[in-house]
């Protein structure tokens, strides 16, 4: 089985059979200018009519959202990260001065719209599909809630919606659509539209990659050595993400996998091993059936 989508840098919409596909669309989420206002979370819920999924106090800084899921398509992570206190001057502790002893890490997480999307690969009904914009979307009138996409996602993004039977799309896999309806009408996705700092930027992925590269170089010049891009490399384990990030620390600090690889890459090998095991079963039966 040849996995043709493993050619880096190719628009997955074209590989999926779209003719005259528009440029691939995506997000660039620059967490260095996120202020944690959660306008993206609210805008997403409102526009996409995503139901409430728990108003709990989680005890995780200002994050009471928890994680991405069936009814959370944008999730702002909050980390109050201790840093070395600035040197005290003349023996006077600098606590309370303009230099705090911690820094905020705030990041609005979202579906990565992978170039090689595990959820899409494993979907047995064709409910998950690649749009003309290169994004990955669930058709909620097709999905039968088998749940296979849930463990297939290396980022833990997609989930099956729980709740009472009367609620919308209960039992069906749900995630960010990159506002398929809005971008189809030439509009900006709700989260990016609502972001007051342009921490969330929407546009042609090629252009966003250039912008991300410029931004990371500037931060490195300014001495911010721990800043890094995430998901921008078309040679990574998912063929590059459609939603790329600028992070200020290791990915796992934000709850992101450090080096995710879509498991479909191992699938040809898996089928071979299963074939060998099937053969072993036949051999075992033949041996057991021999007259002694």
């Amino acid at each position, binding site marked *: 089985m040849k996995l043709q989508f493993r050619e880096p840098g190719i628009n997955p919409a074209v590989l999926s059979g779209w003719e005259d596909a528009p440029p691939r669309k995506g997000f660039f989420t620059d967490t260095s200018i996120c202020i944690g206002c959660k306008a993206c979370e609210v805008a997403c819920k409102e526009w996409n009519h995503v139901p409430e999924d728990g108003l709990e106090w989680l005890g995780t800084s200002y994050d009471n959202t928890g994680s991405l899921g069936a009814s959370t398509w944008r999730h702002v992570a909050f980390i109050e990260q201790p840093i070395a206190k600035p040197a005290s001057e003349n023996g006077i502790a600098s606590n309370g001065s303009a230099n705090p002893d911690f820094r905020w890490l705030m990041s609005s997480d979202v579906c990565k719209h992978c170039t090689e999307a595990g959820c899409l690969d494993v979907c047995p009904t064709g409910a998950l599909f690649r749009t003309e914009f290169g994004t990955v979307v669930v058709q909620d009138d097709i999905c039968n809630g088998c*749940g296979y996409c849930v*463990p297939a996602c290396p980022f833990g993004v997609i989930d099956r919606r729980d709740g009472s039977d009367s609620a919308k799309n209960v039992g069906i896999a749900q995630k960010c659509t990159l506002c398929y309806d809005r971008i189809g009408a030439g509009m900006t996705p709700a989260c990016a539209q609502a972001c007051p700092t342009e921490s969330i930027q929407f546009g042609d992925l090629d252009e966003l990659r250039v912008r991300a590269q410029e931004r990371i170089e500037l931060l490195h010049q300014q001495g911010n050595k721990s800043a890094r891009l995430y998901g921008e490399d078309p040679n990574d384990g998912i063929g590059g993400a459609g939603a790329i990030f600028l992070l200020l620390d290791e990915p796992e600090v934000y709850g992101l996998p450090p080096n995710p690889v879509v498991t479909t890459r191992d699938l040809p090998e898996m089928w071979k091993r299963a074939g060998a095991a099937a053969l072993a079963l036949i051999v075992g039966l033949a041996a057991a*059936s021999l007259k002694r």
Partner: protein
Amino acid sequence: MPKTNKSGREVPMVPKANFTSYYGNPIVKAAPWGKDIPAYLFLGGLAGASSLLALGAEVTGNNILRRNCKFTAVGAIGASYLALIHDLGKPSRFVNMLRVAKPTSPMSVGTWIITFYGPAAGFSAASELRHLVNSKRISSLLKLINKPAMIGAATLAPALSSYTAVLLGNTATPAWHSGFKEMPFVFVGSSALAAGGMGMLTSPVSQSAIARRFAVAGVATELFAIKKMEESMGLVSETLNSGTAGQLLKASKILSISGLIGTLLIAPKSRLGSIASGAALVLSSICTRFGIFEAGQASSRDPKYTVMPQKSSNS
């Protein structure tokens, strides 16, 4: 549930397991599957290997064993259908599985396997009842389809018994994916010992020599493969030895080894010994499937098993 690794956390016994997680939250999501799915892993394996054993019994002229294996197969695949449909978020849409055929989706491949296997196993079992049918036309029709159905079921059976390992392997669930090389062998071994055990349980001692040999080969394969699997899983193999999964897999091992000893020493002589050994083997297979399922779920819940292997593959 605030949980950081800054303080108050036990020092892990695993080297270099220190990384900063996001409040200890999982990264990947555990499959939203209930007990239906591990039950299906067992039932599907049992069905497949029983169809093969039925063919073996036919060739060796053990007619009672053949009939019983066919009944086991059809019962197990019937229960599988129910379990699989019940586990869907929208059971009424189960037929949407037949919209596409996708080799990249082991679940799609499996759907097509059981779609063709089920009727074959059904007709094969039904033809065993042809003597009870009053209508001559139906009776001769059942006779006509007997062989094609039996061979058809036996042809799909090895795929049915092994593909479920690929179903689990093609996920980001650490304990399932990291064992993908050996898991198909664990699963076919578990299938063979379950089918052999069921044959011993249901059929007279004089008929079930082939079931006993099939079961012995299954136990040997499973024990060897699971050991190899543990080795290649690295850090994630912890999940096979702890918690619910650890208990289930320990029970599975005790049951399969005692079943093996019983099969070799008592089952050839005593009907009761045959029943006891067969039952131990069937239970062992159930424990294996539930154990591996639970190990996967546990590995998804702890970010350590997602992050650590990825960090070491990075460098």
